[in-house]
């Protein structure tokens, strides 16, 4: 039977990126995927006639531009369409429109608070500076702080030097930012509660933290450090839905000779003489390779597809303790027409970006309180976008599909496991809230897909439906991700690697994890590095 150079488990975007770089370096690569489609959470699926849902991930910003260029993804069909402006809906008809352009944005904010309009410049400048530091680390392998290897010491000194050279005032500001809550961080800028709430929402998306929880300010950065064509903080759609990213990566992979096998769920990683040697599929088929790379999250990898006896002591426990909490839901809706939002003249900007149904700082925090109590809020935070309004390839002519991301949704309910009835009740809560802002909305619904963490886990394979493959708290970042001592993509079994978002730099459709893992693998094989190192055009 054929033996591959490398088998990658999971055809999510990081798995495909990893495979593409290995194939590009001349390796014979196979990607195995449990579903009958590729892409993992970066996927476009036709769920009802003519409507293509980006069922999970729905917006693109984190994708490393250097990878986009390096793998020639544009030629492979990936086109990004930037957001121009977004709407945020508060209480009592309060609406803030945010614009990518500074001038209009300033004028709009001034209507709500002159003070905050000025403060926004300060915030944006600060966030941009903070993100530059992080961006420097995205395509680098974290050092092991306990190691005395020259490479680790060099990398550690690089980090220490980068930090030290920021100067006293700046270090102080960074530490504040990396450890504080979004609410307290934003208190330094804004006086208007609703503007604060609008800016705080990226701090809670995908995470089991509230706007008041220390650490949420950093998550905020995680959502604004991306870019579209070099515009830091910009968001965009992928033409054809998020699946276009996965399809382009798959096309790049196949061009370099890589293979993809779908409907091939892995039962176990084969370990022979202490080395990873291949995989066994659930149907019993075995496939052999010199190297096995898992794109599954760390918890799933070590507790589900590796035999515990093949692991050194302690790893199983570390995997069990890995924080990967489900906190988000998704409701995807096919619409017969464009909803009409109250208070939005001519539905302006519905066709240019997202809609966020926010409420207030308090309602955001109270939604988190509900999550803590094992239920969902009656008034959840919903981040929506109607991609078809300005990227019409994803719905029949004149029709629309709407993506709704909901924070928070618990992985387990206080009153027992999720059932189809409870799932539908959750969906009902969401559409009722939107109906309040867009009367008649419910009448437009043609088809609806409700996804709680339960559905996301079962279908995509993300434990608890955590969109980042693990919480982005300091104890699980940089050299702690996924566990201390294993942050360099090599796993405790020889010839086994990880390349998913459970590894540095974490979640988001960035391709950085997959690329970094490929660099480490090539280094171990003594092959020339094909992975771009540096993406710091903003220095």
């Amino acid at each position, binding site marked *: 039977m054929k033996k591959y150079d490398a088998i990658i488990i999971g055809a999510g975007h990081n798995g495909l990126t990893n495979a593409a770089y290995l194939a590009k370096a001349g390796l014979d690569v196979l990607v195995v995927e449990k579903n009958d489609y590729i892409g993992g959470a970066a996927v476009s699926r036709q769920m009802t006639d003519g409507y293509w849902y980006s069922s999970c991930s729905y917006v693109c910003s984190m994708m490393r531009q250097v990878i986009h260029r390096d793998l020639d993804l544009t030629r492979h069909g990936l086109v990004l369409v930037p957001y121009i402006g977004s709407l945020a809906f508060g209480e009592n008809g309060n609406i803030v429109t945010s614009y990518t352009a500074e001038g209009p944005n300033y004028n709009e904010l001034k209507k709500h608070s002159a003070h905050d309009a000025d403060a926004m410049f300060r915030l944006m400048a600060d966030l941009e500076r903070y993100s530059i530091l992080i961006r420097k680390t995205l395509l680098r392998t974290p050092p092991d702080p306990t190691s005395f290897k020259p490479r680790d010491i060099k990398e550690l000194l690089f980090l220490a030097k980068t930090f030290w050279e*920021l100067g006293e005032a700046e270090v102080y500001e960074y530490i504040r930012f990396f450890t504080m809550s979004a609410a307290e961080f934003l208190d330094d800028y804004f006086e208007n509660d609703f503007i604060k709430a609008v800016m705080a929402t990226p701090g809670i998306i995908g995470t089991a933290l509230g706007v008041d929880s220390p650490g949420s300010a950093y998550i905020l950065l995680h959502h604004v450090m991306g870019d579209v064509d070099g515009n830091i903080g910009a968001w965009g759609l992928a033409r054809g839905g998020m699946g276009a990213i996965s399809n382009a990566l798959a096309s790049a992979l196949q061009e370099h000779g890589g293979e993809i096998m779908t409907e091939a769920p892995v039962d176990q990683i084969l370990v022979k003489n202490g080395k990873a040697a291949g995989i066994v599929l659930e149907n019993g088929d075995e496939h052999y390779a010199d190297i096995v790379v898992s794109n599954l999250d760390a918890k799933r990898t070590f507790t589900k597809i590796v035999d515990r006896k093949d692991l050194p002591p302690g790893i199983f426990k570390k995997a069990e303790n890995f924080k990967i909490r489900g906190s988000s839901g998704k409701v995807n809706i096919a619409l017969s027409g464009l909803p009409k939002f109250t208070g939005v003249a001519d539905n302006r900007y519905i066709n240019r970006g997202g809609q966020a149904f926010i409420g207030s700082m308090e309602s955001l925090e109270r939604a988190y309180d509900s999550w803590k109590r094992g239920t969902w809020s009656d008034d959840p935070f919903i981040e929506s976008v109607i991609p078809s309004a300005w990227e019409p390839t994803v719905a029949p002519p004149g029709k629309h599909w709407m993506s709704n991301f909901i924070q928070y949704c618990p992985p387990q309910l206080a009153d027992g496991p999720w059932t189809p009835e409870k799932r539908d009740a959750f969906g009902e809560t969401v559409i009722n809230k939107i109906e309040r802002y867009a009367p008649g909305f419910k009448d437009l619904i043609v088809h609806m897909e409700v996804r709680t963490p339960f559905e996301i886990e079962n279908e995509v394979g993300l434990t608890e439906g955590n969109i980042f493959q693990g919480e982005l*708290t300091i*104890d699980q970042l940089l050299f702690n991700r996924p566990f201390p001592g294993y942050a360099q993509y090599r796993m405790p079994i020889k010839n086994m690697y990880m390349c998913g978002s459970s590894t540095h730099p974490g979640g988001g459709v960035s391709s950085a994890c997959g690329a970094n893992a490929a660099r480490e693998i090539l280094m171990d094989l003594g092959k020339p590095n094909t992975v771009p190192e540096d993406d710091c055009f903003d220095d």
Partner: protein
Amino acid sequence: MSSFDAIVIGAGHNGLVCAATLAKKGRSVLVVEAADTVGGLAQDREFHAGFKAPIAHAASSFSTQVAKALDLPRHGLDFEPAGATYGLGEDGAHVRIIGDQISGVPQADHDEFAAYRQKLLRYAKTLDVVWHNTMPRIGGGLMDAMVYAQAALKLRLLGAEDMSEFVRVLTLPMRDLIDEVFVDPKLQGLLSWDGVIGSKLAPRSPNNAVLPLLLRMNGAAGGDYLVPKGGMRAIAASLVSAAQAAGAQIRTSSPVKRIIIEGDENGERATGVELETGEVLHAKKVISSADPKTTLFKLLGQRHLEIEFTNRIKRLRTNGLVAKFHIALSGEPEIVGGPDLRGRFIIAPSFDAIEFAYDDAKYGEASADPAIEFTVPSAVDGALAPAGQHVVSANVMYAPYDEKTGWSDASRAAFSDAIIAKLKRYIPNLDQISLGHELLTPLDLEREYRVTGGHWHHAEMALEQMLMMRPTYQAAQYQTPVSGLHLCGAGSHPGGGVLGIPGWNAARQILK
């Protein structure tokens, strides 16, 4: 006109430690205290005729290094044997811990406990060099960087496995730290309490719990409950004795009106203080153990500070969340299950008991179902109550400083009722023996003890307000931007609690 080498504002324990340390080195020192007694929050207050209690009811974290340096045992400081900490169960089945000993938990927790505690003690010890030194400024010369390198070396000496674990757990929420090891809900609540106490934190809050916990565990008792022989007032008494023996003067009932600033071509410098009485006292150095906002805004005045610095002090997080509750008792409280009254009792029988109590406070409400730590200090210190009678001293979370009614009579009464109702479930005879109680919200503590926000620690013990950033980076070396004006209170590194370290570090830095 009197003139001193140093005037120390405030005769709380840190002010006294600072004064004693300076006096021992031959400096002429005057301590001025607004209240008519010394000791600040660690002094007894009579809250009901014949009944007293201190606000700070434990000295568990007091620095042994400071006690040794000031020869405090010779000045009368001695400790009772450590008391057990109980995680109370309503049915009388309690978790009891003292040292590495634990009872009342499932076997699995029993087996893990000593290793868990020893691990944290090891980390607390590793940081000793950090706590007992001035943290140098960032971005300074190579010498400054060296101090951090030393700390890093200490960490490396832990060994790779332990060091990785240290770096990982340092920012964990209490819940995750504990959940990984223990399964018993009462134990989980008890251990969480010690991480979140005094802070704007609940068990699920990341980043800011473990470092302060390690600081507290670095003290005399390694996390156990400890009171001095003769009660909390013995701390101030021994410090007064040490300070006076070294020649320091202490004046009580002498509130400071302002810090005197004189300017010349070399800029402004602090040259003394003016008391409320109008009396002027001069000194080469003015050292304030008051909290940073009080010192810099009330006593100094913003006009002497740069706008950037002023903003940093303004945005210091200083709102307290702990209320103090005292009850005078005509007889012995009969706690369910009959634990030793000389212990410390925690009513927080699960993570969520604390977490959900915290949720109210986020919206400016006192906890409807509060979490409580109480002691019966009169069981150890007979002077606090008439013979045969007792005092309950309780720390109650959470009580927001900025309660949304401004702590109206109604909200105070409702909160007191909630506290009593909760205590009664664990002390069934409470109603029969209760003679009266006192509620001190953070707002009350601010008014009575001149602590901004009524915050125990003068400023939140959060990473962004600790180490070389406490209280903020331009004042973290016990030196304010105003020449001759120094800080030595809980708002300085390493922080709050009855530690004595800020005062000691400040004095040694000033002597350099």
